[in-house]
């Protein structure tokens, strides 16, 4: 008995000490963000292409030009103070901002611009395809970049694209300007400093990476000499909190200042709670259904009548207003709202009778389709709704949830039948989405249209013409036509555009987020 009470006493003592150690509230000059950072692979802007990493690049690096988060069509001169487009429309000369320097103290020079862009192409990592659309390859990129003088650098390109497109491209994270001297001092086996930059920053942004522990935390410290101006707060700690319910608890208790990616139920529970506010930010992410016309095992999938019927079997309003209230809005074109030239109308509605008619006319009976979805909300919710509406027209949907990487593997290998996917534009230009959904010449490049088995050489030509056009109005008109064609005759059913609902503590001010996935800015945040 004595030994037992001793044990009980010991456990109680431990508990007592533990309770005395609980504290809440984040430090005053540190911003704490609760999100998942499990997706991060590399913080080298030539390599990182996940949400966590691209959102970081806006804070630790700068580009020649950047898009204004409040008005994304507006280009803001950043490391370039001005530029001059050549008369033939195939090159631009940039004047670099005077007095700009990296966090190391090294000045920003034309050599840094050339180094950053050429290494991104030569390393040929995930986001390299963006610069490849300029016709830049590892073999030829050096011939397109040239130092004009101490303050000027010239960029040329060989692809048939217009200068407005090129400028838009240069706002993408891969075009971040890296401190060449720092990167090269850490070069190993010709990697252009990639090994070092995976976990360290060498830029001119408002912050620098203080520490990065994979799956645990990412810490930024303010960069006092940034040309963007000094950040208002001293540090930003981005904590890895994998579970959305845990993120909600943290922001509710004040142990986190910002929480991302909470589910519909959690957001609903937080609305109206004291101390927190749910802020909806416009997002360019779109959810769409993709049908695999190249799947030989299920011949019904090839039939355009099935695709047409599918357009009438989605309960657009029900899903947007009831199931996922606040998280999505109905949008049925491949250019998201906010992009110039995006179609604003939504011609399709849930119409089971019409769908039945289309299927009957095409002689499609007893159709069964396996629908691959990511095993997380909102995709599982959308899938369940589709299952019931498709069933009303006699189409059996077998929903197969899997983890993200497995779904992507199926899509790329074209072994799926149908799927619900999402798409986020890679840069703020219509060509980003158009080149994915409206180009497929079956020539080896696996665009999204290829993954749906949709061969469209004429439409591909039109898309190429749209990116080459010099006049913005002409471009917008062409994209209008291309969207219409995709909307009415492709194996894609574009359904929703997301709203990013971010939860902020009420004392957090100055947080900026733009429509592009990477446009997250911490520099002006105050508490």
């Amino acid at each position, binding site marked *: 008995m004595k030994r037992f009470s001793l044990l009980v006493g010991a456990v109680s003592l431990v508990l007592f000490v533990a309770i005395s150690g609980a504290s809440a509230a984040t430090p005053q000059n540190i911003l704490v963000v609760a999100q998942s950072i499990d997706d991060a692979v590399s913080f080298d802007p030539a390599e990182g292409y996940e949400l966590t990493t691209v959102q970081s690049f806006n804070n630790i690096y700068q580009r020649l030009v950047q898009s204004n988060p409040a008005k994304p069509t507006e280009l803001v001169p950043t490391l370039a103070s001005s530029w001059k487009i050549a008369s033939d429309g195939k090159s631009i000369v940039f004047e670099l901002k005077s007095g700009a320097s990296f966090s190391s103290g090294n000045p920003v020079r034309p050599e840094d611009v050339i180094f950053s862009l050429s290494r991104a192409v030569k390393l040929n990592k995930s986001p390299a395809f963006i610069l490849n659309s300029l016709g830049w390859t590892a073999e030829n990129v050096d011939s397109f970049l040239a130092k004009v003088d101490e303050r000027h650098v010239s960029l040329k390109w060989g692809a048939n694209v217009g200068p407005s497109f090129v400028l838009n491209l240069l706002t993408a994270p891969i075009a971040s300007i890296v401190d060449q001297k720092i990167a090269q001092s850490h070069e190993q086996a010709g990697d252009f400093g990639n090994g070092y930059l995976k976990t360290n920053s060498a830029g001119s942004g408002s912050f620098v990476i203080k520490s990065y522990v994979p799956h645990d935390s990412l810490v930024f410290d303010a960069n006092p000499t940034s040309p963007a101006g000094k950040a208002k707060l001293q540090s930003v700690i981005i904590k890895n909190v994998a579970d959305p319910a845990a993120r909600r608890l943290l922001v509710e208790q004040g142990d986190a200042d910002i929480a991302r990616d909470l589910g519909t139920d959690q957001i609903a529970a937080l609305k109206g709670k004291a101390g927190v506010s749910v802020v909806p930010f416009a997002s360019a992410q779109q959810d769409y259904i993709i049908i695999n016309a190249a799947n030989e095992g299920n011949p019904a999938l090839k039939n355009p009548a099935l695709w047409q019927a599918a357009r009438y079997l989605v309960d657009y309003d029900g899903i947007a207003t009831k199931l996922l209230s606040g998280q999505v809005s109905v949008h049925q074109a491949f250019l998201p709202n906010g992009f110039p030239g995006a179609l604003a109308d939504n011609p399709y509605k849930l119409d089971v009778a019409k769908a039945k008619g289309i299927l009957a006319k095409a002689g499609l009976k007893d159709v069964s389709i396996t629908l691959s979805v990511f095993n997380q909300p909102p995709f599982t919710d959308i899938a369940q709704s589709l299952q019931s509406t498709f069933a009303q027209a006699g189409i059996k949907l077998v929903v197969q949830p899997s983890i993200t990487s497995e779904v992507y593997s199926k899509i790329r290998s074209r072994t799926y039948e149908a799927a619900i996917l999402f798409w986020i534009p890679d840069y703020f230009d219509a060509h980003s989405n158009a080149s994915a959904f409206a180009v497929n010449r079956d020539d080896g490049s*696996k665009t999204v249209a290829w993954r749906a088995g949709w061969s469209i050489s004429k439409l591909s030509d039109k898309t190429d013409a749209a990116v080459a056009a010099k006049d913005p109005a002409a471009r917008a008109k062409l994209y209008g036509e291309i969207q219409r064609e995709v909307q009415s005759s492709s194996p894609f059913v574009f359904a929703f555009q997301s709203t990013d609902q971010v939860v902020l503590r009420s004392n957090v001010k100055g947080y900026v987020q733009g429509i592009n996935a990477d446009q997250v800015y911490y520099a002006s945040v105050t508490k």
Partner: protein
Amino acid sequence: MSTARGRKPLRRFFSVIGGSVLTLVATVFALLLITFFLNSRSPIDPALAVAGDHASQATYRQTRLQLGLDDPIAVQFARYVGRLARGDLGISRSTGQSVASDLSRAFPATIELATLALLLSTIVGLALALAAASRPGGFWDSVSRALSLVGTSVPVFWFGLLLLALFYARLKLLGGPGRLDDVYQYTVNIKTGFLLFDALRSGQAGAFRNALSHIVLPVAVLALDGSARISRITRSSLLDELSKEYATFARSKGATQRRILLRHALPNVRGSTIIVVALTYLDLLEGAVLTETVFSWPGVGRYLTTALFAADSPAILGTTFALGVLFVLINATVDSLVKLIDPRLK
């Protein structure tokens, strides 16, 4: 001076050690082989996981080349084993860091959690088993049986969130998800990765108490299942012992139930108790991935699960290797311990 007889025990000692090492190597090798083969059958494309969905075909092919994915499986395995033999666990494809450094962070976190959970499980499990066995059918017996049921059937995820909602959010008594509050991020000098130990060594009392307040809830969640197991096995072993002749004899001589339990029955069930405790420890070490997810505990379970989802071969194999070695060592230790304490085998 060593005679022929004197040399025999030495030789036998070395042959026993050699035999154990051989067993260890053979077991771990077989484990790696099976894991490698199963991983090669994964429906996840590892190159796609690295290159990303938007990457160009050229980047994708380059990634496949750099990862050596187009080589025959046997060649890939041989390459891996060769590097492993040189002490190189490789680079994780999803973190970009060496697997060794990833594990050097993940293991201490898990070991800290698992060890404390085991301690609590053993204390509670044994206490309950003794109370239950001393009066079968009584109050404590019912409690112990209820605990066994609840402990093994309650969803860990739900229970963890419930505890967080209650003790962290509502009552504000204990720390939330994560190992330490951000205020202490830079004050603790992290040497070993065992936060409680590091905080003590740095002389940071506040950090120590804070780390303790964060570890209590995940330990409680894990201990629920652990104590259920330990109490169930120990209780039935004790009841077995109590029905034996020597117990009846001792009772007839006037010994109290308590004395019989503590001085006769409990020592006799040492063997099975040690085994169930060791098995519980192995289970806790291998990865309380759901608990780690809810409490944002960056341990081995989460690391391995994230690696599996990304088909991150080096991380999967490295973690399996480390866990395999740990398992074999713990099993061997338990085996020798049981043999040691069993007087019948002396």
